[in-house]
Structures are given as C-alpha cells and as structure tokens.
C-alpha cells in the first residue's frame, strides 16, 4: 500500500512542496560537492612548495649513463626526489610541457629553499642535458595560500549547506504532509495510525535526497576522471582527485551521506501524532 501511496505522493508534489524539494535537492547536491572538494584539497604544504625541474636528456645516452645520472642527482642536497619521466605524456607534467618523442628525462623535486639558479647551472654543466624546464615556479606559494583558505571555506559551506538542505527537505515533507492531511485524517478515523501512512512521506524525502546524492556522486567521480586530464591548476589544488580509489570512496561516501540526510529529513519531516 505504501508503494501505491508513494506514486500518488510523488505526483502530488507541486507548488510550495515542489519548490522546497527542488531547493533541498540542489542544496544537498551543493553540500555534498563542497564536502567532497574539502577532502580533495592539499592537506600538507610541502608538495606544493617544492619546485620541480624537468631535465630533458640526449636520446643517444645509454641506459647505464642514465642510471648514473639518476643516482648522482639523488645525492644532491638541494634535491628531495628524482624520478624518470619515461613518457612524453606523463600525467604529473603540466599539459603545457611537451617533450620530443623518445626523449629521456629526469624530474627533480627540490627541497624548500633550494636555489633554482644553482641547480640549473649545475644541471646544465652535465654532458647529455638538452633542456631544463622549471615547473610550478612563482605561483606555488599563492596557490598554497588559496588552498589553505579554500579548505575551511569548503568545510564551512558544507555545514551551512547541510543544515539548509536538511531544513528545505524537512519543509518539503511537512508541506506534502499538510497537503495530504485530509486523507490522513480519513485513515485516522478508520483506525489506521497516521504514522503508518506517514512512512510513505518519509520515503519521498529519502528519494529526493537520494537523487541529489546520486547526482553529486556522479559529479564527484566525473571530477576525478576529468582531473586525470592535464589541467595543472586543478591538479595542484585538488591533487587527491588523481587517486581513483579515493575518488571512488568519496563517490560512495557522497551517496551514503546524501541518503542519511534523506533519512533524517524524511523521518523528521513525517513525524505525526496519532
């Protein structure tokens, strides 16, 4: 019976209840997106503070020579990490950087405070070095400042939007209940507890919240896929978006949180006295 009523209830959503459910759904969607993004911004400043230097090498260099260079550079005090860039389309490189095909390269991550100029001079003295490119210089500190304010801003937005969406959804369920009070009164007078029918109203709240959270979940996962492309700014601000497992987890988390909001809003909104 609840399912039959549910269909009627959904069709009767109009006017104020439609506005409240619509606003509630959109706010919940924004809540979940804001909450997810808060989990994706940098937690630690170190990775952004490190300037990286891409060292393109002569394609004729032998494998042994490359290994020696790699091991040598790892020992430099200014260098935090070194890794081979084997593919011109390496995901960790900005999209603006391109290497000729089959060009071996090393990517140096410098320690905070290391002098780029000294490193560049040192690298350029090495035989077999064709080109050096400094990555992330200049805009890194500014980005870090932005992300430092971004995270609390996103968390604040999450809390405010969460409450607003909850209230809008509760309002939508209450309004719908108000629209159906005559029918519920009929049931009450016939001995059917109002709360029996009210469970269908709670399900409407859960459904609306579910739709909002499914959309948010899809957007979160889609954002992760999009972040895999070479948009350096996005990758620098939301580096964890590059981790598929994390994005999948966040997508599922978004769905669960959204449904929980729906359950709370539905249960709260559909409370009736018998």
């Amino acid at each position, binding site marked *: 019976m609840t399912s*039959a009523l549910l269909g009627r209830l959904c069709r009767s959503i109009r006017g104020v209840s439609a506005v409240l459910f619509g606003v509630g759904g959109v706010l919940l969607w924004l809540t979940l997106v804001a909450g997810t993004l808060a989990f994706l911004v940098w937690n630690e400043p170190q990775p952004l503070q490190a300037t990286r230097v891409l060292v393109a090498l002569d394609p004729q260099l032998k494998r042994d020579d490359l290994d020696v260079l790699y091991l040598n550079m790892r020992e430099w005090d200014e260098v935090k990490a070194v890794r081979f860039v084997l593919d011109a389309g390496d995901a960790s490189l900005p999209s603006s950087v391109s290497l000729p095909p089959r060009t071996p390269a090393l990517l140096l991550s410098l320690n905070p405070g290391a002098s780029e100029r000294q490193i560049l001079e040192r690298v350029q003295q090495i035989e077999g070095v064709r080109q050096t490119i400094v990555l992330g210089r200049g805009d890194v500190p500014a980005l870090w400042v932005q992300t430092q304010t971004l995270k609390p801003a996103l968390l604040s937005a999450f809390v405010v939007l969460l409450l607003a969406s909850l209230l809008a959804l509760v309002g939508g369920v209450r309004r719908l209940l108000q629209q*159906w009070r005559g029918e519920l*009164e*009929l*049931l009450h007078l*016939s001995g059917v*507890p109002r709360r029996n029918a009210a469970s269908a109203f709670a399900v409407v709240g859960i459904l609306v919240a579910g739709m909002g959270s499914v959309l948010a979940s899809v957007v979160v996962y889609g954002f992760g896929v999009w972040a895999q492309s070479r948009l350096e700014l996005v990758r620098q601000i939301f580096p964890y978006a590059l981790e598929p497992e994390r994005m999948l987890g966040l997508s599922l988390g978004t769905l669960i949180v959204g449904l929980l909001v729906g359950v709370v809003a539905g249960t709260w909104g559909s409370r009736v006295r018998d």
Partner: protein
Amino acid sequence: MSRIIQVSELTYAARDRRRILENVFLSVERGKAVGIVGKTGSGKSLLVALLQGELRPQSGQILVNDRNVTRLSPAKLGQLRQHLGVLPQTPVWPEQLSVAEALQFKLSWLGLSAKQTARKIEETLTLLDMASLQNKRFPDLNLLERKIAYLASSLCHDPVLLLGDDPFSGLSEEGETTLALLLKKVRERRHLTTLLTGRRSAPLQRLGCRIVNLDNGNLEETV
C-alpha cells in the same frame, strides 16, 4: 437486545478542573439511533471524542462494542476504530483524491482486496445516490456533497456504529433534511447503530433518533 454503547459514571474535567461531563450514564442498543442535543460548549463533541477513545476521562467506564475504550492500548483502539464510522464536526477534507479514490485509499489501507474494495465502493455510492459525484474531488463539491462524501467514507467499511459530531452544522434547512433522510435510509438498510449530536433536535428526530439532552454536564432523556 445487546448494547453497543454503555457509558457509566463518566466524568471529564477540563484543565482548569471545570467539570464538563459529570457522572454521565448512557446506553445505546444495537440497531438503534440516539441523538444528543446540547448548546455549543455543552460537551457534545467531547462525548463523541471520548467514545472514540481520542480522550481519556478522569473517571467512569465507556464500553463500545464490548471494549472498554478508556483502557485500550493505541493498537487495540485502532482495531476498535476500524469498526466505527465517524463524521467529525469540522472534517479536514481530502484534497488530493476524488471521492472514489478517497474511499479506495481508505479501504486499501484497511487491507481489503481490490475486488472487495471495488464492490464496497459501488455499494456505498449506490446507497447514498452519489455515483455522479464519485470522480469529483472534494474541493469541487458543495458543503452538503462533501458531508455526503464523508458519510460515504464513514460507511464504506461496514462499521457497526456510526458516530457523528454535529454533522448538520453549516447546512441549510434543506441540506439538513437531505442529509437526515440519507442517514435514515442508511440506518434502515443497514440496521446501523447511530449516535449523532446536534444543536437542534429537529434533524435528529427526522431520522428517528431517541433524543437525549446534554445540559450542565448531565444527560437527560426527552420524553
């Protein structure tokens, strides 16, 4: 003949301890009709609410269909109400459904099959001569039609007792007569025990009620 309502030593006081009903005795036999007449504020609506178990008295016993409603749990009270038809004084009209849909809505919740539901709706609408109104929604009906539609909803599940709290309120004299004649017809066809309240005795007498006056918290039979 067995009694379907047996009220004894019933006392109900308001929050300010003013006694609205005091030591009330009332009995209604199965198949009979009783009309309780009283002024506004005399406690007519209160008595109907007490009979339904909506309120609990300070003292006394209320037996309805052999159940003491003052002691029933909410679940048992719900079961009892499934055997009652109730016409409230100011019903909240269903807005989302047509008359037939409202009956279907109610009967489905009471657990009747689709076939039984359809049969009961047809029987009720035929009994009340309101087949032409079945597809109309409550907001599109006039007051008399709404009251008849509500009566249909109160009768469609074959109650053993019909309780009405001033069902004639707001109606013109012509409307009162129409509703009274319909109620009389229902009583005669279904042998339905009926207890109605009202401010005037005329419409209640028209449907053959035994009239009882409610005054100063006491019931008094009219000879």
